[in-house]
């Protein structure tokens, strides 16, 4: 086998093993899953591997001799010239994500690596492109983002529990993105339902750090600016302790240890009272 430490280019292999090594390298290119094709400096295709046939749908016979611009979607006329310009200067293009059009018209997402091909004297005589099909990868990336957004949507619901009262139960921790989304959602719901009271329940929040506490205070303040009363409910001893340690003063915030207790305050604010049907029938007065 060739001496690996001396492998500085195909020249070394050729000296030692002759034509056989050329065939070896050629088969590496042929067997690759990626599209590998060579072109002249004006974009005419010189070689086209099996990966390219599979990815683009064109056979080698169909592509060799044709301009590479055949593959480019009509909305990107300057891409190939720009790439070839870089190559002519001896630069490479790496991990360039773009789209190309297959023979059947389907538009695919690819990651391109384009490098200059030099002859024995070092002169740039063409460009070599390796294209990896990232359509699936991109689809998964987008699905993941979609799922993350769904989780975000689901975990910050704002519910109208009575005319004039909305409840926003916090689940889990509250990072900046969630907090922002939550605040917007809550305020929009308050306006939409014309509510006078918003109950912010933190029973489902396991840990509260400075940032979360800050977001909470901000939310409560913005609710007040809108013209509604915010009530913080579900403040457990652990959270109360953390907030005290953090030096956060909740003195000007109405708080209750449970959502039910908070609802009582809400009803009071709205001048409402819950009585049993018996009491109502008897015409009884207040509790």
């Amino acid at each position, binding site marked *: 086998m060739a001496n690996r430490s001396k492998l500085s280019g195909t020249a070394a292999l050729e000296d030692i093993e002759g034509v056989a090594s050329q065939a070896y390298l050629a088969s590496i290119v042929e067997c690759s899953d990626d599209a590998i094709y060579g072109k002249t400096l004006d974009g005419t295709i010189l070689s086209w591997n099996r990966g390219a046939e599979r990815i683009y749908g064109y056979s080698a016979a169909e592509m060799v001799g044709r301009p590479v611009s055949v593959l480019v979607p009509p909305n990107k006329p300057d891409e190939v010239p720009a790439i070839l310009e870089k190559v002519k200067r001896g630069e490479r293009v790496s991990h360039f994500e773009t789209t190309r059009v297959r023979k059947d018209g389907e538009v695919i997402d690819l990651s391109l690596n384009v490098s200059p091909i030099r002859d024995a004297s070092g002169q740039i005589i063409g460009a070599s492109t390796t294209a990896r099909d990232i359509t699936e990868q991109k689809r998964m990336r987008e699905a993941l983002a979609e799922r993350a957004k769904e989780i975000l949507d689901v975990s910050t619901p704002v519910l109208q529990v009575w005319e004039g009262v909305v409840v926003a139960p916090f689940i889990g921790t509250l990072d900046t993105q969630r907090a922002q989304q939550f605040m*917007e959602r809550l305020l929009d719901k*308050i306006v939409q339902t014309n509510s*006078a009271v918003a109950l912010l329940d933190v029973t489902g929040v396991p840990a509260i750090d400075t940032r979360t506490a800050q977001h909470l205070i901000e939310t409560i303040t913005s609710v007040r*600016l809108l*013209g509604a009363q915010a009530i913080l409910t579900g403040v457990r001893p652990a959270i109360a302790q953390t907030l005290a340690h953090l030096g956060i003063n909740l003195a000007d915030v109405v708080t209750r240890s449970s959502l039910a207790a908070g609802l009582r305050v809400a009803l009071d604010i709205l001048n409402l009272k819950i009585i049993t049907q018996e009491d109502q029938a008897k015409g009884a007065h207040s509790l």
Partner: protein
Amino acid sequence: MTNQNISLVKVRNTLLVTMPADPDDVTVTTLQEEVLGAMEEYRPKGLVLDISAVETLDSFFARTITETSRMVTMMGGQTVIAGMRPSVAITATQLGLTMVGTFTALTVDRALDLLTHLHPRRRIR
């Protein structure tokens, strides 16, 4: 060019002032002057400042509102800020413009109710 006119009407012994969408500094200063003038003329029991059209709230505007509110109180009235948009509320909070000591209401309707004691009074500290 957005309409920089402040609308000022007397409704039910209350001053109803409506701010335009993007008030510049001159308009904001005019607000205070007009309010104080009207307070003297009509002696209303309250001022409702309708900012439902306002899209951006800067610190000058916020400060002027708080100041005006204090002046109205000194002249025997009560101020309620009505109709702040969610986006404005969020920005104001993040900029620390919390306008402590002012009453707020979701709508002009609510604001008027608040001033005429139809709703129980909620002291918003």
